[in-house]
């Protein structure tokens, strides 16, 4: 039996396992075991490492030729002999006719010399470099110039793509040649790549593809509403907010979160802050631009819970089908939003108030009477929405599995 096979079986490795561990192809290992091929020196090292044996144990005895009968049993291995030694160093790149190249000749295993030991002088000294030659590279013969890089013509696929894009842009061949300043027949592969890139950009600018994939719509990944609200907050704009039940609130926007809008109403002497839950908001519009100034923050006040309140009456809505029937056939925008009659603020909207003498914060949401504890938490959310968001209190609207913003995209 082959030594390698013997050792492998002794170590309880399958051929596939050994191939996986050593990175040697299964076919090569099979040939090693069948003695149809000598084990290459790098493979000997790897195999000996994986199989935890000395490299000598893997080397077949000198009389074992490829396709020879199996080698003697392990333990009786003959010492390394001359077949595994390199007779004499041949000049680099020169291999005697009929001889095995030196790099494939198995070399005897020899332990590495200790660190710092002088290197054995087994190599012939290098001939001196000719004048003008670079160290490490052979000298270029005189009269021979540097080879020019190969110029590859454009591929058929590139030409097809150029023609397709030209047809899409309604460009003739002459138009393209004029634009790029070269004949289309003589362009290289590199040129074609540049042409295609430019034509694709032109085609995209001229006619964007009608079919857009989700996730590529502008603004979908960004919270455009947050950007808009941040701008209005900086300007100190006044917003007119209409809730889905028809209630209207107006005030200067002072803060917002993904789930709430904070408006400040009243004059400068008596601020009142209203926290509206976006869940209850139908739409809003800027009614006036502020001067960009921001009032001084009011002193912290202890939350005063005046809950419970009487629950609201559920607003009446048109049935989903009725809404569809009410779509006007004409798209003539006769009724602009400003002209649309909107019910004024009703008194049946539940209000949770935290107040002190100078500042009041009011949370408005279409929600029935809240439990005292919940009201307190929401009052705290109104007082510090950011902290409340971090603590999971976001005015009652939650995103159980997502963070602020809440929406996750299907890409």
């Amino acid at each position, binding site marked *: 039996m082959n030594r390698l096979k013997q050792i492998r079986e002794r170590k309880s490795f399958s051929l596939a396992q050994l191939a996986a561990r050593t990175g040697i192809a299964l076919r090569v290992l099979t040939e090693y075991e069948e003695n149809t091929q000598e084990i290459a020196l790098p493979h000997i090292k790897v195999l000996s490492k994986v199989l935890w044996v000395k490299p000598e144990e893997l080397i077949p005895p000198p009389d074992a030729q490829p396709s020879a009968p199996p080698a003697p049993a392990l333990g009786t291995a003959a010492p390394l002999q001359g077949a595994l030694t390199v007779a004499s160093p041949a000049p680099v790149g020169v291999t005697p006719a009929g001889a095995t190249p030196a790099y494939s000749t198995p070399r005897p295993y020899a332990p590495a010399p200790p660190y710092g030991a002088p290197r054995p002088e087994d190599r012939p000294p290098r001939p001196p470099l000719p004048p003008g030659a670079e160290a490490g590279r052979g000298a270029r013969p005189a009269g021979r110039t540097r080879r020019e890089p190969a110029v590859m013509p454009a591929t058929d696929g590139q030409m097809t793509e150029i023609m397709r894009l030209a047809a899409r842009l309604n460009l003739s061949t002459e138009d393209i040649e004029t634009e790029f300043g070269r004949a289309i027949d003589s362009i290289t592969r590199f040129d074609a790549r540049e042409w295609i890139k430019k034509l694709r950009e032109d085609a995209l600018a001229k006619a*964007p593809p009608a079919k*857009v994939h*989700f996730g590529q*719509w*502008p*603004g*979908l990944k960004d*919270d*455009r*509403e947050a950007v*808009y609200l941040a701008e209005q907050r900086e300007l100190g704009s006044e917003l007119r907010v209409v809730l*889905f039940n*028809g209630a209207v609130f107006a005030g200067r926007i002072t803060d917002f979160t993904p789930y709430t809008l904070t408006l400040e109403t009243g004059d400068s002497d008596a601020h009142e802050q209203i926290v509206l*839950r*976006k*869940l209850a*908001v*139908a*739409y*809003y*519009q*800027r009614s006036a631009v502020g001067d960009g100034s921001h009032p001084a923050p009011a002193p912290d006040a202890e939350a005063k819970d005046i809950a419970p309140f009487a629950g*609201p009456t*559920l*607003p009446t*809505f*048109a049935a*989903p089908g*009725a*809404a*569809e029937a*009410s*779509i*006007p056939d004409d*798209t003539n*925008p006769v*009724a*602009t*939003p*400003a002209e*649309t009659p*909107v019910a004024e603020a009703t008194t049946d909207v*539940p209000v949770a108030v935290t107040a002190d003498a100078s500042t009041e914060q009011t949370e408005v*949401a*279409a*929600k*029935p009477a809240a439990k005292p504890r919940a009201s307190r938490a929401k009052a705290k959310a109104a007082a510090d929405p950011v902290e409340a968001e971090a603590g999971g209190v976001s005015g*009652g*609207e*939650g*995103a*159980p*599995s*997502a963070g602020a*913003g*809440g*929406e*996750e*995209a*299907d890409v």
Partner: protein
Amino acid sequence: MSLSDYVKFLRAAKGGVTPWEIADATGLSSKEVHLLEVKHRRMGEDDAMLDKLAGYFAVPVDTLTGRRDSFRKRLTGFLADRQRTGEIVTLVLESGEALHGTVAWFGREALALTPTGGDAERPLVVQRAVVAQWR
């Protein structure tokens, strides 16, 4: 209106109940309820889940199951198209109110309409969840 937006709307109509409260009342997972709202693709394949939600919100189950095909992507695609072409759109809210204008921008939860003949600096920001129909 998509199923996602309709569930959100029903939440608002029921006083702003949270997904946790719905989960407590129906035995559903709050995560399931949340995902039903935020996913853009077709959702609501689980009949039992929609049945429980319909019972909780006291609406016919058909109003939920019938909205499976109108998922959020459709409104998004409509808005993207109209924003590109600059055509006037009509949005009908659940209350029956109709809003007209051109799409200034749109995001995940809201869209901005520039009212026809109005000031482009003062867009009308509409929450998606209240949009029942669009054309």
